[in-house]
């Protein structure tokens, strides 16, 4: 006697059943989702953190004296041309790029870790990040000849190189580890091998080239948001506007996939197709992020694990991981830019400094909870 979905507590039903099970649904029109108060609270808190970090990024990155009052005026359409330039052309693209790149990395990490059923799976360990790096560094080093990269090569060449390199690495890793299905350990082993190979090629390229190109390549390889402009932010925003909804929609299969291939097939999931789509989308997310800001380490590894523990979920929650990735990157960038001012450290240095202790704290805490 299954009454229509209106029931959450219908008195006509026998006493136990649905009432005894605390898994309510959240309905909006014809759509409905599981209502998880804890996950919703985490998402809300992280969104507030993200918004605060974004606003903070608009107020101060540089030494220019444009404070909260001026920024508010500019955002509302006022301010003088100089202030407008600083807020709209310098700070806004950087903040936007940071948030988008972090979000893409967090989401990608959540998917990769779920698919590989291993918390170590991330763009860093699967070679996608270093693959993208080798593409970009190759363009910087080879494309620029003596005079360094300029014009079209700088604008399109480096991002295109990063995307091509990242996709090539992802293809190599997934192709080499594919043997009638993807096995988690093989995926990680091949990924680490490809990752180390690419990293060493990058260092070789940098030693081989002249000092000037090597310095530029070094800045890029560390991962930084200094050079963010509207071209990069815009390109990232447009591609992510497509990729993020695609990833979240494809992510519906992650729950079933987490029970193993046989169980997932039994639940009606086209396992190979679903996994291929998920891996492709997460590789593309990483490539877009890397092409915009260089390889930013650790966000894709830490954000999903932190989000999972905050939500008390068994698998990394995609939406919360995405928000947390954005927040983590923005906060790290501000610390990197502000802590040793006027020296601006690349954001990549600080994501690990910020994320690692917190992740370790959570792991130790959760270990005490006796739920492994």
């Amino acid at each position, binding site marked *: 006697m299954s009454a229509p979905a209106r029931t959450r507590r219908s008195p006509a039903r026998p006493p136990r059943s649905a009432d005894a099970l605390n898994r309510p649904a959240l309905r909006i029109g014809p759509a409905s989702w599981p209502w998880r108060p804890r996950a919703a609270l985490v998402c809300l808190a992280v969104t507030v953190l993200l918004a605060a970090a974004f606003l903070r990024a608009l107020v101060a990155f540089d030494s220019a004296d444009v404070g909260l009052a001026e920024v508010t005026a500019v955002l509302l359409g006022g301010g003088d041309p100089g202030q407008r330039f600083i807020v709209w052309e310098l700070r806004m693209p950087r903040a936007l790029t940071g948030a988008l790149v972090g979000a893409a990395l967090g989401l990608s990490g959540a998917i990769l870790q779920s698919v590989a059923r291993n918390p170590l799976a991330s763009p860093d360990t699967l070679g996608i990040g270093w693959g993208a790096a080798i593409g970009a560094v190759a363009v910087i080093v080879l494309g620029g000849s003596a005079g360094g990269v300029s014009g079209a090569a700088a604008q399109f060449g480096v991002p295109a190189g990063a995307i091509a390199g990242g996709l090539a690495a992802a293809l190599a890793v997934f192709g080499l580890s594919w043997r009638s299905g993807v096995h988690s350990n093989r995926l990680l082993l091949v990924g680490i091998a490809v990752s180390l190979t690419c990293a060493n090629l990058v260092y070789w390229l940098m030693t081989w080239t002249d000092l000037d190109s090597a310095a530029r390549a070094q800045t890029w390889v560390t991962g930084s948001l200094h050079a963010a402009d509207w071209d990069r932010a815009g390109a990232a925003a447009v591609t992510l506007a497509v990729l993020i909804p695609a990833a979240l929609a494809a992510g*519906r299969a992650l729950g079933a996939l987490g029970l193993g291939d046989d*169980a997932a*097939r039994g639940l*009606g*999931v086209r396992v190979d197709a679903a996994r291929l789509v998920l891996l492709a989308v997460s590789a593309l997310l990483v490539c877009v992020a890397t092409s915009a800001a260089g390889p930013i380490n650790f966000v894709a590894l830490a954000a999903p694990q932190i989000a999972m523990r905050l939500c008390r979920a068994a698998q990394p929650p995609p939406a919360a991981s995405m928000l947390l990735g954005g927040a983590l990157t923005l906060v790290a960038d501000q610390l990197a830019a502000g802590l040793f001012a006027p020296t601006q450290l690349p954001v990549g240095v600080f994501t690990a400094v910020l994320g690692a202790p917190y992740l370790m704290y959570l792991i130790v805490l959760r270990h005490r909870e006796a739920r492994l």
Partner: protein
Amino acid sequence: MTSEPPTGGPERLRAERVTLAYGDNVISHELDFAVADREVTAIIGPNGCGKSTLLRALGRLLRPDAGRIVLDGRPIRSVPPREAARTVAVLPQSPQAPPGLAVADLVARGRHPHQSWYRQWSGTDQEAVARALELTGMLDCAERTLEQLSGGQRQRAWISMALAQETDLLLLDEPTTFLDLAHQIEVLDLVRELNERHGRTVVMVLHDLNLAARYSHRLVAMSRGAVRAAGTAEEVLTPDLLAEVFGLRCAVIADPVSGTPLVVPVSAHDPVPDTAGSPAASPSEG
């Protein structure tokens, strides 16, 4: 085509001359098998005889190299996976869950074939999960994680997940492995209840011949990838067949509790008992 008409009712699931293989390793060659509506069928046979492989093929987990699986008259290849998953639920042999997964969340994943991207959870899903947990007596453990359960409870949690799929057909691969006798009976009593009270058709792979005889309408004995015998427990569990299939001398007597055949293995050191060779005493249970 050659599969004998089953006794219980219309055929629900049928394997037609299927050849099953893992790569080049052919397990079964042109196998026929049929499942009748509202029956409990147990597949028995020695290790490596192809029982689980057949069950995997029936449950769409393994694609036959030749032949076809037919579900309710339709070749299962032409049935969309989600639709098939609303008719047939499979419990694989050693399913894995991410650590820390709560029972209710495991069972909720059984609702996957009923959901869509915009309707990921509804009151109907909640009720189905609650019903499944109630059937298996696991409602009180809903918020515990799988690691906190005993082996029998864990098996019941997984069965609940298959039940939450709300399918007519249930395929269970060795649902009693790793369980002590009490928990085996607990799981099999649940299977019987699902069949008798809720009209579910069940196919299960079992190792314990006596429990298979007691809890199923039909036994299918396999060896080396082929079906050697199919029918009631009395028809299948004969000393001759057991010698052929398992290579073991056995005495078959009537189970003092259920009246179904009771297989007593005879080792090489035992004297040959008188009862060996005599058919089981009583007809099948009600």
